[in-house]
């Protein structure tokens, strides 16, 4: 059982997330039958799985939740924000249960919530007994069969077949259970068709079941006849046969003649067709992240040694090696691409939590906010994705809390009463870009300035854009009152550091009255990057290529002074000069010929002065251990082809 637990946890999380998404959709459009069906399917899977895994409380709660959903579907209960809140409460409780299970404490009971659910369910049932009776029968069939099985049952009903639920308990004295079960199945199939069996037929054949078998059976026989059929087989302890009522399938065929009835019905009744579409699942397996990381490391090693062999081959001019090396080259490149692709995850896995969060936060603050998500299919490295969650939550909360105004304020300003928050992701070159835009009040540079002076941060001579960027400074919060939504002064600086640790960068643009845009740039992959090797005082450093705009040979005289700062004129733009040797406290060699590396960090440019360039290299980023965390300006180190170690510069840190 243990080995299924991880699978169960992961799938439960997925299913809960899916329910969250779909219920939000239903709140928007209560008429959407497809979504409703999807919710049913997912909730049912969840119930079944928690039952199988032995979490009765979870199973029970999901069951009550299904009852409420059924009331929605039969239109006995209105979809409104109260009832939706109730469903969300269920989902939250369920996800708490899953968390508890992860902790190894199992699920827990929440009677008050279940009572609440029961009351809603009963209240409605009493009101309309007749309808609910009918609904109950439907539950019987819809609850236990998936859409495909249901459609078989429906078709069977049309041909005067009955559907039965048969519970069989095989005597515990029975030695060959699977043979017994096989006899039952064979006998039944002579007179009808088994449409579903729990456990599955394969499991029965492999004898992977206890003593109970649950079958769903379609046959022309009546209940008694079915019972007799099984009774004749020995070593059966108990049999119960129960007929279940199947709702007629949507009458697609008959309506053809009366098609021009009324245009009211949307052509949404393509259930059956959709089922067959959905059955085509992508063939995939789950692999633990550890294995993937390991694979990645091995490929990285391979890349290092390939470079090593290339160096040796060229040093000794071994021409015979060339062809093989080319092949090895091709294969390692392919391997590398493949393993990188395997680690790519759509950004949706981060984005998907936000519709729910935006709803909750905006309700809590009494603001109207519409969330628009674009480009959620953009893929990024798994590590980036997992680290991205917290900073994103912070940015979105900030946007709603500080950015978007209250409804009254917005109306007074002549804006749409509902604010908009946009999350847009896309790929640009070898970078992933995420934008978070709000159309709120924007960030007021004057306010920031005031705050800066209050906190003794020097803002002399900065333009408005630069002042707004001060929000990334340590210990900064513009809101006078601390709210529990976006917290205290810790925040934007933490966001910036987190993004920077991922090798990315964050920038902000804001216009008072029109809102703010935060732009996050991230590397698509983390582990293997292209870089330029630069040299200062005979020590080399790697700079990730993505930050480099241009490399120019210069002389000392090309550097000009502007006030107290050194600048370099690049394309008629005065770019601040950073001397790498000074930053790192090392000597420079005494040549007058220098090299200027023009760096681009977000929208800003810097000129990094180094002694010389050693060339372009593909490098594998290795983490520096805890003993060097936070020291200097490095994101990691790498091993070069000659076996030497070099440091990889943290460009955003170097330029701030």
């Amino acid at each position: 059982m243990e080995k299924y637990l991880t699978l169960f946890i992961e799938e439960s999380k997925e299913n809960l997330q899916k329910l969250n998404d779909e219920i939000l959709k239903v709140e928007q459009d209560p008429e959407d039958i497809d979504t409703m069906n999807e919710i049913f399917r997912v909730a049912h899977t969840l119930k079944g799985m928690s039952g199988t895994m032995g979490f009765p409380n979870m199973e029970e709660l999901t069951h009550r939740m299904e009852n409420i959903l059924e009331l929605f579907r039969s239109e006995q209960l209105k979809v409104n924000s109260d009832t939706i809140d109730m469903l969300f409460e269920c989902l939250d409780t369920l996800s708490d249960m899953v968390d508890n299970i992860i902790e190894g404490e199992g699920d827990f009971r929440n009677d008050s919530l279940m009572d609440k659910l029961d009351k809603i369910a009963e209240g409605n049932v009493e009101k309309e007994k007749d309808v609910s009776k009918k609904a109950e029968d439907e539950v019987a069939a819809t609850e236990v069969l998936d859409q495909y099985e249901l459609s078989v049952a429906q078709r069977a009903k049309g041909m005067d077949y009955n559907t039965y639920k048969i519970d069989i308990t095989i005597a515990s004295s029975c030695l060959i259970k699977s043979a017994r079960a096989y006899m039952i199945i064979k006998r039944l199939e002579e007179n009808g068709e088994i449409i579903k069996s729990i456990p599955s037929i394969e499991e029965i054949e492999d004898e992977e079941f206890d003593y109970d078998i649950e079958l769903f059976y379609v046959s022309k026989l009546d209940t008694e006849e079915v019972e007799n059929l099984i009774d004749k087989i020995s070593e059966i302890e108990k049999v119960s046969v129960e007929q279940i009522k199947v709702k007629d399938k949507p009458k697609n065929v008959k309506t053809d003649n009366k098609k021009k009835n009324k245009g009211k019905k949307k052509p949404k009744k393509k259930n059956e067709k959709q089922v067959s579409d959905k059955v085509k699942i992508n063939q995939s397996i789950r692999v633990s992240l550890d294995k993937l990381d390991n694979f990645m490391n091995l490929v990285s090693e391979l890349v290092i040694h390939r470079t090593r062999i290339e160096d040796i081959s060229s040093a000794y001019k071994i021409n015979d090696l060339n062809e093989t090396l080319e092949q090895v080259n091709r294969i390692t490149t392919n391997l590398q691409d493949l393993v990188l692709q395997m680690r790519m995850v759509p950004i949706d896995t981060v984005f998907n939590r936000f519709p729910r969060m935006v709803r909750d936060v905006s309700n809590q603050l009494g603001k109207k906010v519409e969330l628009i998500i674009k480009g959620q299919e953009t893929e990024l490295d798994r590590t980036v994705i997992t680290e991205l969650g917290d900073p994103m939550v912070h940015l979105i909360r900030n946007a709603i809390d500080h950015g978007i105004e209250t409804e009254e304020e917005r109306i007074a300003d002549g804006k749409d009463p509902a604010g908009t928050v946009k999350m847009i992701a896309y790929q640009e070159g070898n970078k992933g870009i995420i934008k978070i835009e709000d159309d709120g009040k924007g960030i007021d540079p004057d306010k920031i300035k005031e705050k800066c002076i209050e906190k003794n941060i020097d803002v002399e001579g900065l333009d408005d854009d630069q002042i707004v960027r001060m929000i990334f400074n340590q210990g900064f919060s513009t809101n006078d009152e601390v709210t529990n939504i976006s917290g205290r002064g810790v925040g934007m600086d933490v966001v910036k550091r987190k993004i920077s640790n991922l090798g990315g960068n964050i920038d902000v643009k804001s216009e008072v009255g029109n809102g703010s845009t935060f732009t996050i740039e991230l590397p698509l992959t983390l582990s293997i990057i292209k870089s330029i090797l630069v040299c200062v005082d005979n020590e080399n450093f790697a700079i990730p290529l993505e930050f480099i705009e241009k490399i120019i040979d210069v002389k000392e005289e090309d550097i000009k002074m502007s006030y107290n700062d050194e600048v370099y004129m690049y394309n008629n733009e005065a770019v601040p000069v950073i001397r790498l040797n000074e930053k790192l406290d090392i000597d420079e060699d005494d040549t007058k010929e220098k090299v200027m590396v023009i760096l681009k960090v977000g929208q800003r440019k810097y000129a990094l002065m180094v002694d010389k360039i050693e060339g372009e290299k593909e490098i594998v980023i290795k983490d520096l251990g805890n003993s060097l965390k936070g020291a200097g300006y490095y994101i990691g180190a790498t091993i070069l082809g000659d076996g030497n170690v070099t440091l990889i510069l943290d460009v955003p840190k170097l330029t701030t």
Partner: protein
Amino acid sequence: MQVLVFELNNQYYAINTEFVSEISKPLEVRNVPKSPDHIVGLVNLRGNIISLMDLGSLLKLEKKEEEYSHIIIVNMEEELIGISVNQVKEVIDIEEDEIDKLRRKEHEGAIEGIIKLDYGIVNFLNLEKCILEKV
């Protein structure tokens, strides 16, 4: 308990072998500008990049220009760390009560006690305190 005895700055030190992952010949060191004083640099140990620490600086010993003969690779909380030593002496089994616990204030944390062996006095190091807490 099994301990590894080594020599540094003309003194003997011993560490519990449970931390020791391997002993390596000296490796080429890559200096890390702007790193803490006790970090000598980075070395390439068969494709793994590990930090090399200066035990002398951690123990606040006087700097002496001497040949290091070996690097002891220790495993501290999942991180491999190298320590340069002048000489690796031996690996011996000792009983817990053979360590005389120190009461002195000096290096109170890092040097836990002394062991008397026939060739001299050996300082027994608490590596965790020394490397992780830097006391």
